[in-house]
């Protein structure tokens, strides 16, 4: 059988899978909407309209009446729990430890304004804990005292107040909201679920119903069956990923990098889906019951999703779990998408790492799936 035939036959299997997908389009789309809708709308908007009390720290280097009044104003806000700290170093270590989500540094010059120099600095961790919109409250309160506020983010060139890294994980940083952070993780998850339940899983039902036997008695090469299934799983993942992205964007998330960023996101989804669709082939080659497959698929994907930093940055993981996130391909998929969405740029060193790991992972599992399917299916 020529390579050309293998490829053309793959597209026949792909066509068949996509026709089946199309025949259940309404159900498939509804199913794909529910998951991101619930996560993004509910989890992504946690605290927007509710009384979430946020712990913040204040270091007062001004020690003048206006500074005290400013602190009192912050303390009078019901959404903030203000802790006055002795110095910046203590404050930064508490910020790093996650005890506070924002650290307000009142500079000695406050309330005087020198041209171009801020007199209030706010360090913040834009992470899971920061749900109470505390930065906006701090900034609006500071404006009442004509303060010149600068929100400090880690590693920014203007960060001269401290040499300390506030947070090592880059996913904390940037100007994006938690919602944008979450959307990146949700996109990865719906894409993986799309692969797991839209790719090779149908091999099990095909085998049970006799469809697989019908294919195998035709002159088709088994590789074509695998490739067709992987392609369809990847296409379905892309559809689900796009839906999740649109839901996120409609709800206020952003892609800082714009259209080119959206294309990078699609590329990341596609590469990740090829890998996970191949995993479905591996599972389906060894499993004959859909129920067992579903249990295993969930047992594999859910932990991978959680340790990938879908809900929270991987640096927040316990020390025993962190190494697992390093070998989790989803960590790199989520990372890549977040760079695009939150930073507006895709750092070349990071992109090489993320893409290389994802591509390497996908190629390895695809080759394993070819081998297992060819030997186990007859």
């Amino acid at each position, binding site marked *: 059988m020529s390579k050309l035939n293998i490829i053309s036959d793959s597209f026949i299997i792909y066509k068949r899978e996509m*026709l089946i997908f199309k025949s259940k389009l309404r159900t498939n789309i509804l199913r794909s909407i529910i998951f991101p809708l619930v996560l993004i709308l509910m989890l992504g908007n946690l605290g927007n309209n509710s009384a979430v009390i946020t712990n913040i720290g204040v270091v007062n280097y001004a020690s003048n009446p206006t500074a005290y009044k400013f602190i009192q104003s912050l303390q009078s806000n019901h959404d903030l729990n203000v802790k006055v700290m002795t110095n910046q170093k203590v404050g930064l270590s508490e910020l790093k430890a996650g005890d506070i989500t924002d650290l307000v540094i009142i500079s000695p010059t406050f309330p005087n304004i020198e041209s171009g120099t801020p007199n209030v600095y706010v360090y913040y961790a834009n992470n899971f804990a920061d749900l109470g919109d505390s930065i906006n409250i701090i900034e609006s309160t500071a404006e009442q005292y004509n303060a010149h506020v600068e929100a400090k983010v880690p590693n920014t060139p203007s960060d001269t107040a401290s040499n300390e890294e506030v947070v090592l994980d880059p996913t904390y940083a940037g100007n994006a909201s938690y919602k944008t952070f979450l959307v990146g993780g949700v996109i990865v998850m719906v894409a993986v679920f799309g692969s797991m339940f839209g790719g090779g899983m149908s091999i099990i039902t095909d085998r049970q119903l006799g469809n697989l*036997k019908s294919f195998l008695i*035709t002159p088709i090469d088994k590789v074509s069956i695998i490739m067709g299934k992987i392609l369809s799983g990847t296409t379905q993942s892309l559809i689900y990923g796009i839906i999740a992205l649109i839901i996120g964007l409609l709800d206020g998330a952003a892609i800082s990098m714009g259209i080119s960023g959206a294309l990078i996101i699609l590329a990341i989804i596609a590469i990740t889906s090829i890998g996970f669709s191949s995993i479905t082939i591996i599972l389906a080659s060894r499993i004959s019951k859909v129920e067992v497959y579903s249990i295993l698929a969930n047992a594999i994907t859910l932990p991978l999703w959680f340790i990938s930093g879908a809900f929270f940055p991987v640096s927040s993981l316990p020390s025993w779990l962190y190494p697992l996130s390093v070998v989790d391909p989803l960590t790199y998929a989520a990372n890549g998408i977040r760079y695009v969405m939150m930073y507006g740029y895709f750092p070349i060193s990071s992109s090489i790492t993320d893409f290389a790991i994802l591509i390497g992972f996908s190629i390895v599992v695809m080759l394993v799936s070819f081998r297992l399917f060819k030997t186990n299916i007859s």
Partner: protein
Amino acid sequence: MPDKNIALKIEELVKKFGNFTAVNNLSFEVKDGEIFGLLGPNGSGKTTTLNMILTLITPTSGSIKLYGKDIHQNINESKKEIGFMTQETVIEQDLTPRENLEIFGELYHIPDLDNRVEESLKDAELSDFADYKASAMSGGMQRRLALVRSMIQKPKMIILDEPTTGLDVQNRSSLWDRIRKLKKQGMTILITTQYLEEADALCDRIAVIDHGRIKAIGTASELKAQVSTGDILEIITTIKYVEQVAQILKKFDLKPEIKTDIVTAPISKTEVIKFSDITKEVIKNNIPILGISMHLPTLDDVFIKLTGSGLRDSASGSPKISIGAKK
């Protein structure tokens, strides 16, 4: 020089799975243009044999030749020349008949596929339903679609694996007519079935296979002649009295067999005179008789004689419908 009249020639075929021998030195031929029945209980090696003919598994030894060519040395060519319809209605329920046919037509790389699809839809009398979902069609329509789909590549031979399982009497009869029509068109057909009357009605020749070996082969009449030199006496009573009836038959030097409420015994031509005496004896013992008859042995009787069990008894999950047409 291969015999052109032989479509399929199986010689000394062996298939072992570890220490288990599923097919044991099996040999038979299917003539060009005939309907050949392969009968055997579950685990007889029937499915393994079919899978080897379909090139899904490789024989341990022996050969399978299709029109003189070894199929395992010409796999792709053989696949195009053999059609296969499984016992399940293996059509994609979410697709239309047209889509079902197109997908398989494309896999066989059929030129002018559109015309071939239209032709197949017409053959299956499904032209008016071509663009409806297959799931909306009746069982009979789905089976017709499965049949034309299995022949989309215009094979020389078709294997029908229990083609009428689960169909009602009307649809079964309709499918029989289609199978006979295929034979008239020159198609060679290898059929497996659990309905012995189906084999009796359709097959030119039948092979009974058990434990991976051929137990008997021939026409239905030849097989019946092999197992009996006379008729079968059959007495239907209630379960309570079957043992008593069996004892009476033994008194007349017959060898009774009990099947629920039916007692049967082979009876030779010379023993036919015993019939009235047996009847009188049964009545004298006040045994209720629901039916009493003599008939020629059926394929069911042949099967039991050759394999030690009824075909239907061994077919797990199959519909338990009475079989064995009386002739």
